[in-house]
């Protein structure tokens, strides 16, 4: 009887540990519903801890080549004045400075040879930089088609939320 009880508690403990450790971790910067709202459907999410404090979140919508991706990479900078320059340099010279997102922010667009568009905002909140990338193919059945204005409104709103989480 005692042994059965011990086994029960051992199993219960293992189950508890498993349930806790298997519980999906949420992106600390924005939730999946918000990412899904921007991309236009239910998204899958992936988190990567790049350091003890920093997390990169990736939200995907679609399949195969017909995929839109929203990636938020947050980095803690040892020397913000210098380090942020290198993050900002990932935007081309056509970057647009933005006001009202973190301490400072810029936005830029790039289109590769296959027609894949990447809308990107690089911003800083105190000593943390984040890069918000929205990548989507030229067109596709499962991809939400946005006008340029809608795209900018949406990604800036998302960047504002990421910055808000970092404040």
């Amino acid at each position, binding site marked *: 009887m005692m042994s059965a009880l011990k086994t029960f508690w051992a199993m219960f403990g293992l189950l508890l540990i498993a349930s806790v450790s298997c519980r999906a971790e*949420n992106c600390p910067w924005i939730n999946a519903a918000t990412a899904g709202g921007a991309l236009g459907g239910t998204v899958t999410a992936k988190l990567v801890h790049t350091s003890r404090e920093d997390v990169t979140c990736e939200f995907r919508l679609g399949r195969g080549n017909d995929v839109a991706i929203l990636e938020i990479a947050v980095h803690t900078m040892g020397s913000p004045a210098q380090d942020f320059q290198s993050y900002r340099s990932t935007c081309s010279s056509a970057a647009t400075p933005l006001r009202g997102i*973190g301490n400072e922010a810029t936005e830029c667009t790039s289109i590769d040879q296959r027609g894949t568009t990447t809308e990107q905002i690089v911003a800083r909140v105190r000593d943390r930089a984040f890069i918000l990338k929205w990548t989507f193919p030229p067109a596709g059945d499962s991809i939400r088609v946005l006008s340029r204005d809608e795209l900018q409104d949406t990604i800036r709103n998302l960047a504002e939320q990421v910055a808000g989480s970092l404040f």
Partner: protein
Amino acid sequence: MPCAEGYWSIVSPLALQSSTIHKQQVRQKVQMEMDHNARKSRWVVSLVFSTAVVAGLSFLPLGTHAISAQAGQQQESVPAQPQTYPDRRIERQEYIQAEPQPKTELNAERKEYADKVRQSYNFSVMKGNISLPGNAEVEGDDFIQPGAFPNAKYCGHCHQEAYHQWRQALHSNSFRTPFYRTSVNIVMNTKGIQFARHCDSCHNPIGVLSGGLTQESIVDRKFDQDGLTCTTCHSVQKIQSTIGNGAYVLGVPAVTTDAAGKRIPGEVPYADILAHPDWHARAVMQPFYRTPEFCAACHKANLPTPLNGYKWIRAFTAYDEWQNSKFSQRNPLTFYSADFTTCQGCHMKRAPNTLPEPGAKNGTFVSHRWEAGNTAVPFYYGFDEQLQKTIAFLRSGNYLNVDIFALKIAGQDEMIAPLGTRPFKLQSSDVVQALVVIQNKNIGHSLIPEVRDLYEAWVEFMVKDSAGKEIYHSGFIKPDGMLDERAHSFTNRPVNTDGVFVDNHKVWTIHSVAYDNTVAAGRSALVRYEFKIPAEVKDAVTVTARVNYRHLRQSYTNNVLGKDHPDYPIVELASRTRTLKIGDNLPTPPDTGDNSDWMRWNNLGIGFLDQLQYSDAIHAFQEVTKLRPDYADGFTNLGLTDIEWEKFSDAHANLEKALKLNPESARALYYMALIERRFSHSEAEVADLRKVVEMYPQSRDARRELGISYYQQDNTKLAIEQFEALQTIDSDDLAAHYNLAILYRRAGMKEKAKRESAMFVTKKVDPGAPTYSLDFLRKHPEISTESVPWHLHSDLVQESTIQSGGQN
């Protein structure tokens, strides 16, 4: 606004009541008569109540004599009446109020949504309550889809001026601004996101009511950028009471109704609105939107026990400050009078609209900028138009008066006052004390209101020689952007249990307030500066006193943005400069903005009174009566000071003079009632207070005192009526809770008594709290003198005074 981009001006003066150093603030809060009662009153109720409050007893003392309803002795009661506004104060109602939707079943879409949210919602604060520790409610009492709220762009399609203004105003940025997010993130990251419902009930109602503030949120937060959007305020159907913390009840948002007046939820085609603009108006407007009570839903806040795990603490209450101001015309005890003005009267003034606006009337539209003191937010977002209008607002309105009132020259007994009215002589090497009076003249709330731990207003005082060389400077900004710590600032210092200033607005850690030097509406602060005229100065010096304002303390802005941010605006609110010649000074004509001499003396008297310097206050008010022998309030002020000084016979004589000049002076009658009580003239006391209540049915002080008077007459029924009326005016009044607990119990209403007892215990002061304040002041000698009502700002070291230890 609770918990805001800088919020919480914790005002818990009762917590400090046992400390004499805080008596000034205590008096401002509880009004004169409470102090009076707190002293030696021999009547049971006031003594028991006062003792309980002063000592912070943790139990309910029982009265010493039985009280029963005495039907035979009942007098005609004066029930509390809802505030009625004279016709001239009401705009013509051009719509019929829509009927709120009856509480019916949720529609299928909302029910499905609510059921889904509920599955993972963290109800840890209170099972079933979606907004605690905030008070927000929505019709149907369940989660509502964010999509049920038509967004601001939908409204802005037609209401272009409103949209344009709102987008730059603090209300639209109530959530997203970094100054708020930094604060609320700390709540979320340390206590849990569910506790942010307390703040977001006002800062992000859609976030709260949609169930977005939970760990496993399934809510798309795209609405965050709009904060208080059009359809949050314009969906409010009811104000729960004036308890604040988001004490509104939203209807399901609707922008039109059917012909019968039933609200039609959600967006409708613009053509439908244009076809029936009256239906649109009755869906989105309510008469109470024009009342201060509407603003009170959020511009009054407390820290409830579920948030701080400690006890109920008043956070701020701009609403009560307004109600106690001259602008409400509800308080007979104000020093001055004014036309009735609501919050909206100052912060939503009509102005010509430049963009199309169907809500405009005769080319003007009520401001949806809510110009106030919010300069940091438009500065951050680059909303220059909003920033300039805010600065213009702060400098308009004759809100403050700065008066370099008097000089005292060391070695001379006589005070040179009021400056400008009489000749005097000044010499090189004189040590001069300047008395500066700052009058909160036309602000309908305190200077500064609400989030006093973050907002910053202070006196900058400068003395320069004729070449512009600085002789003395207090209230300067240091190279790192921080304010001179010895400046006289109109601020407070909330502290935690370690006696440490709560720098980052962690309001739930606040247990006490080390000091609160804000100036209540209509009152005046007396600030003293001492400087020495250098021996080499032979011609003249200029003396300037100005009140500066910065939206947020530098250390808080540093917390939010790091230290590498640009300089945030500092706005001069008011100033006065005088030139003092070395040698003979003749009288000079007043400046345009100067108060008349009797008012200058009156303000000085108020300043002395608030600093407990009764003899000086009497002298100042006597000067008022000399200059204005027809001015009844001059004698009332003398009477009031006498009461404070416990010279009751003198008070009686002065109040009689006041009543002879103006027999209908509610203010004089009120204080006379207190004297009558002192003299055991119970019937006269009640008669006077009844007159005051008839003239001012919403006077909390008169209701409170009349309740006490009836209590003392063993008239339970009428006493209960008064205290219940008092609770409709101020639901947090401690005296009402305390006395009702006793009265209900004696009347056999045990449940009600139990509730009032509980409320009293919850809201009464923690007697241990002042120890944290003293701990803080001990650690900070550089500013500890700010907690002393009488203090002097000086760079001169007075070794002899220090060494004497006050013994010679």
